[in-house]
Every structure is written in structure tokens, then in C-alpha cells.
């Protein structure tokens, strides 16, 4: 049996569609339920519903053999696992955003950056040799420049609607983000006969959707 860690919500719905197309009896994922563990009727798959940021943890520890999670979460977690497949959905970008007239603040000697992605931001600015003050927020990141808490924000941008509504613009697109299939480093080898065909099926399915 394969154990699969899934992030609750929209991502889980998109995953369910792909799983069903690949012939997995994942209809159970579509049911309204408060259960955290669901098993397919043929007992070939067990799904765990976890918080998105916990998907890498469950997979790194090997409690889940595979998981599906956004690239942004993977970058932030820095977990030791295999990233096997780009599922292409939930596409967005990790961006630096701020007031349009403040483009020059990017070069300020002490830039203040508000973000949920503290580790990713640290790595990014460190690799550029820039000293910045990273301010950790848990939501409504766009509020930080409006209130003067930070000069810019570092966050995912999907449609850009929230930015526009608050008078902010993307100053720089840094990473392309989409959902990824990750695998535990041991499970990929010890359960290769179950995991590899699944990945091949999912790859074909995604390529089919792109075409």
C-alpha cells in the first residue's frame, strides 16, 4: 500500500482528478468528510490530509511515501526528499512586490521584507549579497508596505488582484511555482514497483492535458 500526503483544499481536488484519470479509485477524495485518513476501496492507496507545509515533513520522515505540494512550500521547507514530477497545476510566481514608485527601494542599504517564506527569502537575499531585515508574517502580507511595516513583500502572486486592489505592483518575479510530486528517498527504492508506474501514468496524464 502507498501512503500519500495531500494538502487539504483546492490542491487535493486537482490531485483527485489526476488520480482518477490514472485509474486510481480516488473518488473518496471528492466526498465531504472530516476524516484525516482515507483509504481507496482496493486498499492500494491511503491518503493523509495534512496542512500544506506539513506535506514535506510527512514525506521526509517516510510516514507518507509520496506527497503533492506546491513548490513554494518545498523551497521553504528545504526537506531532504526526491522531487519527481512537475504537475503544472496551481501555477503562480514567488515575487517581490511593493509600491511602483518605490522601485529604487530594492537597492536600499537596509531593505525591510515582509514574508511568510522566511527561509526562502533569507536564502535569496543572501545569495545576492544583500543585507535585509526579514519580517515574518502569517497572512495579509500586502498590508505590510501599506502600513509602513516593510518596504516590500516577498509572496506568491497568482492573479495579482490583491496587489492591484492595494496599489502594489510586482517589482521582480523570482521563482516559478506549481504543484510537485515528491517522494521519500527510501520509499522510491523500496516501493519502486508501486511508485514508478504511478509517476509514469501521471506524467502521461499531465502531458496529455498540456497538449
Amino acid at each position, binding site marked *: 500500500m502507498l501512503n500519500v500526503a495531500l494538502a487539504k483544499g483546492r490542491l487535493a481536488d486537482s490531485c483527485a482528478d489526476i488520480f482518477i484519470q490514472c485509474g486510481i479509485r480516488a473518488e473518496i477524495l471528492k466526498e465531504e468528510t472530516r476524516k484525516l485518513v482515507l483509504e481507496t476501496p482496493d486498499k492500494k492507496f491511503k491518503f493523509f490530509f495534512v496542512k500544506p507545509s506539513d506535506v514535506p515533513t510527512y514525506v521526509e520522515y*517516510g510516514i507518507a511515501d509520496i506527497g503533492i505540494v506546491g513548490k513554494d512550500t518545498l523551497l521553504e521547507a528545504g526537506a*531532504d526528499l*526526491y*522531487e519527481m514530477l512537475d504537475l503544472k497545476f496551481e501555477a503562480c510566481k514567488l515575487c517581490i512586490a511593493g509600491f511602483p514608485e518605490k522601485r529604487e527601494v530594492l537597492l536600499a542599504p537596509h531593505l525591510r521584507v515582509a514574508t511568510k517564506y522566511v527561509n526562502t527569502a533569507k536564502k535569496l537575499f543572501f545569495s545576492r549579497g544583500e543585507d535585509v531585515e526579514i519580517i515574518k508574517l502569517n497572512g495579509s502580507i500586502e498590508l505590510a508596505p501599506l502600513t509602513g511595516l516593510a518596504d516590500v513583500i516577498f509572496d506568491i502572486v497568482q492573479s495579482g488582484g490583491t496587489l492591484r486592489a492595494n496599489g502594489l505592483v510586482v517589482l521582480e518575479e523570482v521563482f516559478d511555482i506549481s504543484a510537485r510530486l515528491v517522494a521519500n*528517498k*527510501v520509499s522510491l*527504492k*523500496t516501493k519502486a514497483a508501486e511508485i514508478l508506474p504511478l509517476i509514469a501514468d501521471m506524467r502521461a496524464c499531465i502531458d496529455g492535458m498540456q497538449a
Partner: protein
Amino acid sequence: MSFFKLPAGLRDILPQESARLDRMEAILREKFIKAGYRTVRTAGLEYYDTLACIESRVPQTKMFKMTDKDGNLIVLRPDMTLACARIAATKLRDEKIKLCYFSNIYDFSAGGNSDREVMQAGVESFGEQGAESDAKTVAFAAECLRASGIENFIIDIGHVGFYKGILEGSGLSEEAAEEIRGYINAKDAVNTEIALKKYGASKKAQSALLALPSLFGGVQILETAKSFTDNGMALSALEHLQEVYAYLRELGVEQYISFDLGTIKSLSYYSGMVFTGLAEGVGAPILSGGRYDGLCAQFGKDRTAVGFAIGLMRALRAQGTEVDESC
């Protein structure tokens, strides 16, 4: 009531679990001695400079550092292979010697899936070389795991020469190669491709590096890999592994063997074949080892060497609960 806590990443082992460890240690000790390995106990503290000045240095962030009375920086032993290589090169005269140990190593940066104090049982054999010696070491590793009551495991074999060979003449800078190594190690084909476009490697190297994340599986992948390179070092690495596999079949352990050419560790002293032991139900390797021919020379005497270490706590987890817990 007051609580006395331990620092993060450390734990006490209480009698029941300790007894299981004792049993596993006793089994392994008997195996090691019968195979001609002699135990050593290396110093728990070493000079920082010893480990930071060699070519294959231990990353600074991985070591517990303290200051000695005379102001020298000292560290808690971060690695047993380095300690054994230092001893073999500086204190033992024998050209050929087989050492084994049951010791703790310390990793300052560990956390998450690994502990900061790791109990290891390992063997290091100096002065032997060639595919037969490599195969015997792998087969012995399999025998040790089996003797410890672990049945569902795989020994996953790679070779650092394949990656090194592909990098030769690829035109990639050391920095770029290190970034790409990280992606390949995570089998992250997306970022491998982006990085290759950014740094612009040679055509031949690009196709080989892009293939690396998927070059794992049975022995047939070694043949597949040959089509991606005409580099001498890379090809001889593949031929070496095929030879090792032939010996492993003779030794009757081929059912435990798989190959992965995309596992490339950073800053490592390994020079040839590398391998890890993977057990179902344990999310991280229970055993790791390989050939490190250039390491002794860094301590002053050139010796070929190959060895492996078993992580005892992880091996205990791989045993599962079917083992008798009565005592």
C-alpha cells in the same frame, strides 16, 4: 516537580531499548571479528584544524566546537571514517588492515529526520582495491543487515566517477556544478534543466545531466547510462559497477541490489563506488558507505580504503517489533 531536559536532537536510551541495542551490537561484533576486522576506539574530541584543513573537510556548521585550555578549537568527533583513516595513515604500519568500531558521532546541524548523536557500527578496510574488494564489502554489509534480523532492505549502489566524468569538459564552473548537484541529488529535473540553460553546459554534458535524475533502478541502467557519455572516467565507472555486480551475483546477494547514478553527496571523501542501505518503513538510510582511496593520503600516507557504517538506532527501527522483547 522539576524537569531535567536534554538538548534538542538528543535522547536517553532506557533499559528495554538498550537491551535490544546490546543484542544487535553483539551480533555485529561477532560478524566483524569473524571477518577479520579489529576494533578501535578513537578519541571523542579532535582538533578542528584536522577536520577543516583536509581537502574533503567537514562543513563548519556540522561540528560541535569548543575551545581547549591552550586556546585551540576542538570538536566532538563528527565522523568515524575520517577518524579511522587518520589512525590508519598516522599510527598503523600495516599495509593492509581491517578496522571496526562501535562509536557515537555528533552532528551539530542535524535535526528533523536525523539525530545529533548517532550510534554507529562500522567497518573500514585499508589496502585492498578493485571490484572484488568493493563487492565483498557490499555483500558483507548485506550479510550484517540480515544477521541483525532485517530482511526487507535494498542496497543502492552508485559511483562518484560517473558524475565527475560528465563534469569533465562540460564547461561548468565549480559553483554551477555544485548548484546542479543539489538538484540532481533531489531528482529535481525541472531545476536541473533551468540551471543548465542558465549556465550553458556542452550539449553532451547537458543530455547526460538531464538524464541523471532518472538513471536509477536495476543493473540494466548501467548499460543505458553508457549511451549518454563518451568520457573515459564516466565509462570506466559504469564498467566498474558492472564488474562489481558480477561478483555480487557470484556471492549470491544480487536480490538486494539496485543502482542509482544520481545520488551525489556534497563535499564527500568518496572516490569510487558508494552505497546506501534502505529498509522498508524507515524513511532514511540505515547504512552508508563506499570507497575513499584518496583520504588516507590527506593524512600523510597513501592507502586504498573501503568501508561502511550502520546507524544502529535506524537499524533497530528497521527490525520492527517482531523481535523478542521479553528481556
